[in-house]
Each structure stands twice: as C-alpha cells, then as structure tokens.
C-alpha cells in the first residue's frame, strides 16, 4: 500500500470569493505506517482527509493509492468520523456487518468476521446492543471495528476521540496503539491533540492554518513500549512543548503572501 499526495491544493468558492484551504500538500504513506496530521482549526485537516477519502476532489495536484488516482470514495479507505459514526437503528454487530453486507459477502463469512472484529476491539459482549446503549468510547470502537471489517488498505481517522472525555480518550489512544501494533494497519490520523499525534504516530506532519500547508514534518523515534511512561518522559515532554509553541506561533502569524 502506498498513498501519495502530490502538490494537492483545494479551493472553495469561485472568482474573488475563492478561498485557498489547502496549499500544495505533498506526502507519502507506506504500508503499516501510522501517520498523523496535526493542526489547529482552520488548517484544512478535515478537508485533506475528505480528499483522501474521495469525498471531495482536489482543485489541483493529485492523490493516488497504489498508483491509481483517487476519484471517489471506496471501501479500500475505511473512515471513522468524530461523531454520528454509527447507524443508530442497528446493533453493534449489525453496524460491524454493514460494510460486508454492502459488498455482498456470504452470511457465514459476515457472521464470522463480525464476531472476530468485535472481539478485536474488545466488544464481543456488546454485540446485541444499540449504539445509544453504548458509551462514547465503545461507540468509536464499534466504528473502528466496522471500518476494519471492510478490510481497507488504509484506515482514516478524523479526530476519532475528539468528542470523548480525557480519561476515556487516553484509554482509547492506548487501545488504538495496541491495535496498530497487533494488526500492522496503515493509518492516517487527523488530530489537533499534540499528545495524541506524538503517542500514536511514527510520522507527524504539522499543518499551518489559512491556508492549510505542511510547515514541519517529524519522524518520531520514541520508545512506545509503555505509553503511560512515555507521556511522562523528558523527550516526549520536550517535543510536546516545542510543538505547542509552534502551533501557537502559527495561529498568531498571518499567512505568508502568495
């Protein structure tokens, strides 16, 4: 799997009212890589994710997956949104099965894989419960299981834990980290949470706002054996403070001229 973005620009509106949202974004994501796009609001990070998902088309530049240009949404790129992520009328198991049913897989296969992926996210017991009977963290785990069950080549996470309480968010970050280590998934994560990006990703691209553009790229070499220890470690804290300064600076400075 290889996702390649080359000089991707996105403009909204036309003529004089046109607004440049993304400015010449280029990066590559390889198989098994966990890549985070870190930026504050206005950095166009959600738009960038929608371009990768194929929900929007770029104004210029190109996106391709394994050499094939991205022309629309498809099940090779599974997506998890921050909210309204589950079908409220379906049980957890039916939510997980949904994508496989769209693909027309055999019933037996669907049942087997549903059970498997619910187990992967630790929710085998919640199979028959409706989304409203699940906590926010459980709902997002079901959404991740549903995306995984469609067996995408790339998992897209758009602030998946942004709506959760701090403690649950930390637990979910540990869960996602473990999941990634176990399964060797390729993940593209969008977040405004510096800790989240540093804890989970191998590579972090920092996006500046208005227009959204990559201003810094970090390849992380942190010991991720124990995330709780990592959070407290000096190298982590240093990086964290430095990135916080960078983001604050970016929010204050006006965008450079064309």
């Amino acid at each position, binding site marked *: 799997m290889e996702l390649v973005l080359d000089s991707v620009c996105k403009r909204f509106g036309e003529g004089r009212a046109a607004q440049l949202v993304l400015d010449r974004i280029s990066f590559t994501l390889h198989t098994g890589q966990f890549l985070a796009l870190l930026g504050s609001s206005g950095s166009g990070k959600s738009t960038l994710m929608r371009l990768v998902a194929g929900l929007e088309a770029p104004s210029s530049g190109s996106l391709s997956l394994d050499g094939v240009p991205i022309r629309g949404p498809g099940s090779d790129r599974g997506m998890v949104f921050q909210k309204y992520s589950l*079908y*409220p009328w379906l049980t957890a198991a039916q939510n997980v099965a949904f994508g496989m049913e769209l693909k027309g897989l055999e019933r037996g296969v669907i049942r087997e894989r549903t059970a498997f992926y619910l187990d992967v996210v630790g929710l085998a017991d919640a199979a028959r419960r409706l989304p409203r009977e699940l906590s926010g963290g459980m709902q997002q785990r079901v959404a991740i299981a549903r*995306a995984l069950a469609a067996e995408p080549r790339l998992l897209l996470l758009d602030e998946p834990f942004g709506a959760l309480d701090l403690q649950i968010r930390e637990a979910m970050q540990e869960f996602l980290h473990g999941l990634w280590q176990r399964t060797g998934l390729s993940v593209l994560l969008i977040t405004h949470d510096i800790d989240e990006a540093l804890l989970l990703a191998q590579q972090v691209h920092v996006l500046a706002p208005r227009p959204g553009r990559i201003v810094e790229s970090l390849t992380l070499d942190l010991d991720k054996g124990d995330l709780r220890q990592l959070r407290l470690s000096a190298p982590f804290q240093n990086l964290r403070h430095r990135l916080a300064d960078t983001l604050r600076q970016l929010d204050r400075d006006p965008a450079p001229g064309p």
Partner: protein
Amino acid sequence: MAPFNVQVPRRLRRLIRHPWFLGVAGIAVLLVLWSVVAGLGVVDRLFLPTPAAVLAAGREEAASGDLWRDIGASVLRVLGGFGLSALVALPLGIAMGANATLCRLLEPLLALLRYMPAPAFIPLLIIYFGLGELPKVLLIFIGTLFFNTLMIMDAVKFVPRELLETTLTLGGRRRDLLLRVITPFIAPQVLDAFRINMAAAWNLVIVAELVAADNGLGKRISLAQRFLRTDQIFLGLIVIGLIGLLIDLSFRLLMRRSCAWAN
C-alpha cells in the same frame, strides 16, 4: 402553628403516579360534570342531552347498522385520501430532501399551497368531480400532501452527513444511501408526521361529509342537526374523537414496535 399535613395513602399515591391515571381522571371529571349538569335540568335537554340519551342513540344506531356503515364510509375515505398522499409524499419528500435543486424548485410552491386551506378547494372539487367519492378522497389528499411532503423532506435533511459518507467509504452506492441509510433513519419521523397529519385527514373527511355526502359520520351529524337530534350529534362527535384517538395510539404503538431505537 402546626404544619398542615395531609396523609395520602400509599396506594392512592401509587395510583396517581401511574402514567395513565391523570389522563383518564381528566376525562372522567368531564363525564361527571356533563352528567350532573344535564341531570340537574338547568339546561334544556334539547341543547344538552344526558349521557344516557347519547348512549341510547348509540345503541339505536348500532342496532340499525347505520353507525357501522357511517364509520366504514368515513374511514375508507380517510384511508384512500391519506394513503394516496403518503404514497406521493414519501418519494417526493425524500427526493426533495436529497436533491437541493429539486428542493429549491418545489419548496416555495409547496409552502404556498400548504397555506391554502384545503376546505377552500371543495367548490372546485365539486365542479370538477361532482359529489361522489373522488372529490372527498382528493380533498384529503390535497389537505395532507404538502404537510407530509415537507415534513419528510425535513427529516431527510437532518440525516447526519457523516452517516451518508461513512456508507460511501464502506463501499455503498447511491441506492444504498437511499434504501439502507436514509429510509431507516427517517422512519420514526415519517411515522410521527403521518400520525400528526392523520388528524388533519380526519378533520377533512368530516368537513367533506358535512358539505355533501350520502353517508359517513359527518353526514350523520348534519342530518341530526336538521332533526334537532343533539343526542346523535353528541354521539357522532364522541365516535369521531374515539376513532381519532385510536388512530393516534396505533401509530404510537407501531412506532414503538418498529423504531425502538428512536425512543
């Protein structure tokens, strides 16, 4: 001063807390008031029949079969007109909710038509279609179509974009969005819209029958007026109310059964 303290027996308290108790009590109080006022004879019997007289009128009409024929005729008209309206409103409302162009084209028109009182169409309907069943069914159709359509359209607009886009990233096509996401998502709101607009349909059938009909509950009331049979008028009103309540409860039951997730 000693606090004023009333001991309410526990059993009574439990009864009051029952969800239906107060509602039933309200109706019971009205019935008692009616009996007392009518029984005292302060109001002329001609204007205010006793409950017993209304009950007797009911027995009489039930025995002769008139009551059942009237109920049947009115209910059939409502089912026909409202069924037709629902059949058109569902696809139209969904299409308008899903397609911005179609919405911009039709919404102002429907909003305008919605404010034309349906009974005002009766003269036209009689000129076009005479006095048979068709104009009555069409009156109900016209009177509920625009409300049904606009309410369904609104429900579709409130389907979260994330749900639709999630479906696309799971490999869903437009057809899947319509049949597997939009339809189940709006089902509870559609049932609720139908429940509310059914009240309008039930109003309109009576109006149509008051104006021109051979049978039906509205016709019975207007006949009763001619012969000063206030007992039959009361009976008609009560039967109309009861059937309306029954329809409302059926929709609520259907909703609770089929859309448990939305409660």
